[in-house]
């Protein structure tokens, strides 16, 4: 799964730590999601979607191997 988290975060001018605090996870977790090492749960994806006010599909995208 690909994601545009880093880009969305840059647009919103948030650091990893800011975003982490807003959705109640650790900064390292945000780092792992951005690096593609961790696929967030639906709840977390929806929290991110609500925060950036964009549909989940615009932030997270399936890849061919998924």
């Amino acid at each position, binding site marked *: 799964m690909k994601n545009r988290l*880093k880009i969305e975060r840059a647009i919103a001018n948030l*650091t*990893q730590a800011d975003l982490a605090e807003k959705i*109640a*996870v*650790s*900064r*390292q*977790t945000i*780092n*792992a999601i951005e690096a593609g090492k*961790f696929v*967030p*749960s639906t709840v*977390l994806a929806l929290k991110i979607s609500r925060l950036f006010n964009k549909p989940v599909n615009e932030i997270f995208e399936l890849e061919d191997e998924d």
Partner: protein
Amino acid sequence: MKTNYLFPHKFKWISGILFIVSISIMLCWIIEPDIFKDIEIKSKVFAIAETAFMGDNVYFGIIDTNILDELLMATVIISGLVFAFSKEKIEDEMTSKIRLESLVWATYANYLIFLFCVLFIYGMVFLNIIMFAFFTHLLFFILRFNWEIYKFNRTTNEE
């Protein structure tokens, strides 16, 4: 949704210290049982069953015994469980994932080593192996989980 069977984070350090101290004593004791032969805490305790080397077996009765090993083992088990399954400072789905993976890893490691011992270790020393195997599952999990969490927490900042 919120149930995760974990203890609060504040228990982690106190149980960690207790666990490290008690399991060290425990492992020394398994290897060299004589080190505690002069220390006895005699007490009358309730026993569901006691099979005696000499004399009669006791079922559902009161027996007189040295409870040092019971106390030590209880400390290892309770502090080990609390230490192993305390929440992290920031508990989220990533720490849950690391916990699950470490548990799988520790289970494989423990039983593969045990299998190896079953096949290649014979005689009285095998009883020690059984004693070890009882604690090493928890020990392997604790080592693996805390190592992975340590590595995870060190992942570099920002881009």
